[in-house]
């Protein structure tokens, strides 16, 4: 029984990355290496105002003083930061009037990824700001959104067009000296998205950005800033796939969210960057700082993530619950296979009164991978009646992988009610037996059980995303799902 199951598990888990392809577009890039000159050059090429250059340089000087963090349960090979290209933009200038002007190769890339950038996207009701490496290539729906007063554009454009808004909010949630990778990002960030939802506006569509790491040796440093004013609502989708590559690539992004009074922001991610091959060669290093600030009373920020890719994931989408009655949610599925390593989780910082947070984390480890949940729930002294519930489950497939849990609970207020639960288990033989008995073969049974196991999180995703997430799990566990 066990051996047969192992065999199926093995078959199921040794699938190769299906989205590995490489787009050949001429690139305009700076030479490798990082220095104040490089930063000045990036800022110059992007035509940024003075304050941005200052911001970048300050972050760079902070970064120089910092050390690479080593507290995570990860084995990170030393990264040579001078061996990375910090700026790469597609040469064909992206100022296009219609779809026909978009580089056909680029279009084909998006098609392969299944992004309907064309008109059908409009019908699907999703606006896309596609980031190909560093410069935004094409933005759809901008006008429709503009009617409502919603700003959805690349951060470079925002810096030029809305400097006051950017100046006010950029770095207000993740300061430039927050941590090593955040400082690096603040110094060199190339592009990303900016979203501004004015007072009382509910975004009529789900905003989505597909990031794609492309040119060889280009670290991508996106910067996303979402500002939701009073009584507004937005759901933002981020999805990632990257071409197959042998050299490790660094990815250090920052996502900042500010939610004012009664605003609600829902941020969903499906991450499927190249995880390296079966022997752990290659793959993306994903070191991301994501943080949301529930600034106003009754505000709400919800993170949902499905992490299946990257050789190393280091990511803790967090919520700072500053406003009274604000709430934060974190739903996560992290799947690691082969030699992947993931150290991911969340921080819920309760500052305001009557704040609530919910954490649901589902880890799946297969192959020789290591999967860790690391989370902090902090209730400050003035946070009356804070409420938290955390659940972290791990599922192990195979005896060479590891699943770990490192929750931190820091409670400084007696009216807090904080609960944490974690379990680790494998798919029970009795569960498989039960399915077999009813005529479901073992492979389908494994799929069924995994599917059920992550359902709580997948259910949080918007419809199209949920479908994609299931597909990714399918690829990562090769046909066992569904």
């Amino acid at each position: 029984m066990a051996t047969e199951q192992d065999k199926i598990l093995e078959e199921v888990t040794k699938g190769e990355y299906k989205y590995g392809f490489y787009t050949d577009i001429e690139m305009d890039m700076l030479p490798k290496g990082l220095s104040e000159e490089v930063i000045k050059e990036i800022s110059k090429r992007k035509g940024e105002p003075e304050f941005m250059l200052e911001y970048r340089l300050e972050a760079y000087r902070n970064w120089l003083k910092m050390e690479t963090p080593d507290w995570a349960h990860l084995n990170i090979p030393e990264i040579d930061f001078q061996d990375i290209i910090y700026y790469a933009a597609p040469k064909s200038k992206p100022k296009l009037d219609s779809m026909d002007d978009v580089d056909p190769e680029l279009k084909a890339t998006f098609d392969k990824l299944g992004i309907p950038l064309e008109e059908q996207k409009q019908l699907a009701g999703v606006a896309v700001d596609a980031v190909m490496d560093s410069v935004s290539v094409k933005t759809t729906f901008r006008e429709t959104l503009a009617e409502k007063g919603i700003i959805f554009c690349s951060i470079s454009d925002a810096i030029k067009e809305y400097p006051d808004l950017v100046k006010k909010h950029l770095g207000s949630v993740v300061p430039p000296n927050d941590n090593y990778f955040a400082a690096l990002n603040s110094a060199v960030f190339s592009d990303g998205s900016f979203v501004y939802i004015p007072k009382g506006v509910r975004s009529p569509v789900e905003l989505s950005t597909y990031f794609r790491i492309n040119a060889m040796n280009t670290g991508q440093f996106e910067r996303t800033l979402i500002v939701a004013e009073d009584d507004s609502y937005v759901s933002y989708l981020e999805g990632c796939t990257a071409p197959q590559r042998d050299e490790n690539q660094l990815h250090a992004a920052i996502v900042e969210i500010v939610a004012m009074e009664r605003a609600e922001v829902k941020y969903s991610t499906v991450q499927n960057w190249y995880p390296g091959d079966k022997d752990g060669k290659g793959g993306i290093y994903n070191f991301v700082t994501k943080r949301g600030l529930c600034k106003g009373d009754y505000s709400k920020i919800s993170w949902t993530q499905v992490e299946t890719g990257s050789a190393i994931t280091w990511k803790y989408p967090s919520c700072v619950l500053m406003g009274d009655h604000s709430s934060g949610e974190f739903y996560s599925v992290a799947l690691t296979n082969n030699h992947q390593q993931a150290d991911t989780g969340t921080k819920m910082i309760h500052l305001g009164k009557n704040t609530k947070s919910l954490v649901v984390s589902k880890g799946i480890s297969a192959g020789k991978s290591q999967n860790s949940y690391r989370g902090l729930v902090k209730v400050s002294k003035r946070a009356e009646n804070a409420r938290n519930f955390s659940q972290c489950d791990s599922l192990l497939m195979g005896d060479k992988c590891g699943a770990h849990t490192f929750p931190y609970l820091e409670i400084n207020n007696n009216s807090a009610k904080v609960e944490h639960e974690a379990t680790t288990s494998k798919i029970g033989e009795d569960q498989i037996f039960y399915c077999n008995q009813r005529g479901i073969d073992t492979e389908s049974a494994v799929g069924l059980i995994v599917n059920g196991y992550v359902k709580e999180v997948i259910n949080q995703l918007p419809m199209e995303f949920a479908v994609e997430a299931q597909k990714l799990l399918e690829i990562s566990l090769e046909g066992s799902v569904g």
Partner: protein
Amino acid sequence: MDNVIKNIIGKDISLAELFDENRAAIESHSSSVLNSLRDEAFDAFQELGIPSNKVENYKYTNLQPLFSGDFTFSLKPETLTENLEDIFSCDVDTLDSITIYLVNGWYYTRNNPGVLPKGLVIGSMAQMAKENPDLIEKYYGTRAPHLSDGAVAFNTMFAQDGFFVHVPKGVAVERPIQIVNILMSEDALMTTQRNLVVMEDNSEARIMVCDHTLTTGKFVMNSVTEGYVGKDARLDLYNLQNQHNATTQVAGFYFEQHENSHLATNNLTLHAGVARNNIELKLAGSHAEGHAYGLYLLDKNQHVDNFSYIDHAVPDCFSDELFKGVLDDHSTGAFTGKIMVRPDAQKTNAYQSNNNLLLTNDAKMNTKPQLEIYADDVKCSHGATVGQIDEDAMFYLRTRGINKEEATILLMYAFAYEVIEKIKVEPLREQIRTLVEKRFRGELDKCHSCVVCGQKGTDVTCL
């Protein structure tokens, strides 16, 4: 990294310098077994120092400031003029036990444990290391991590005395063994204690370690207990901490268990200034069972940090952890529970739970339950809660006409009882039960059995 101790024995000196100066004297009084690790420990200590909150495992307890200040350091055995039995008597009066005393970490010379069961050895670590070095050598320094933990390195470099318990093969000790650690000194005192418990195959014993302070001065006690529980052996270990508020206690229990062995540790912190308990169980033989329990009742500015580490090194083992705390006033608590399941330690069952009641808005609790799992056929779970008294339960009791104060006491008592009921020595369980209940009722405001608790307005004398 070294910790500077100001004015120790009247002059500015660091702990490493203190050791260096007195090294010759320490070594000449000790057996070669204890001397054998001093070099390594000294090197490690110079690098590690006394753990600060920068060290991940000591994140919530910064020992550095507690280990500095005006102290005398206990380098020689205490010479007592009065008889210990005259100035101290145990609270658990109905207990028929084999009792020995240690004063400031040194084996009390006039100990008279009475007639011991055949083969049982209870005595001084210093003496045993001289008389039977081969036996000690086999276990000494094998469990406690003197190379990676600064507090253990400190202990190992100064190690001179402590208690030694040896239960030979097949011997079941009927009466509980009671070890009373007494701290008494005219000046502020820093001291260490090194203990060893060896349970040979198929033996059985129950050991109670009671920590008391008899004088009001400041104390820093660093104790390390290593233990070996052989095949089919069974050991219940209780540590009862009842020390006044100016005491800092770092107590490490490092045990290794073999096939089918059963070990239960129970850390009952009824009163302490700052207490840090390290409980490490290594399950090294299949079907071994390890239980770690703890109860801490804190008030004033007390601080208790329980750090547990259960290492499932082989398949088919079972472990269970339960730590509960009630925190009042400005007290702070910390708990770390680490469960490690090594590769191939299949069929492991490991459970862990930490529950805390915060009674005031100034009390703080930090808890860190961790799982590190490298095998797939395992069942592991942990849970941690921090909160207040359950409103539904309170409502239920109120509807039955029980007033709020009484209901609160009842519920707190019920909360704590889950740990108390794990105590297998009945007179001890009864005593703890009464103590806890009295404590909740406010009848026993402060430490039960010390001369003065160090707090204004209380002068409970030793019973």
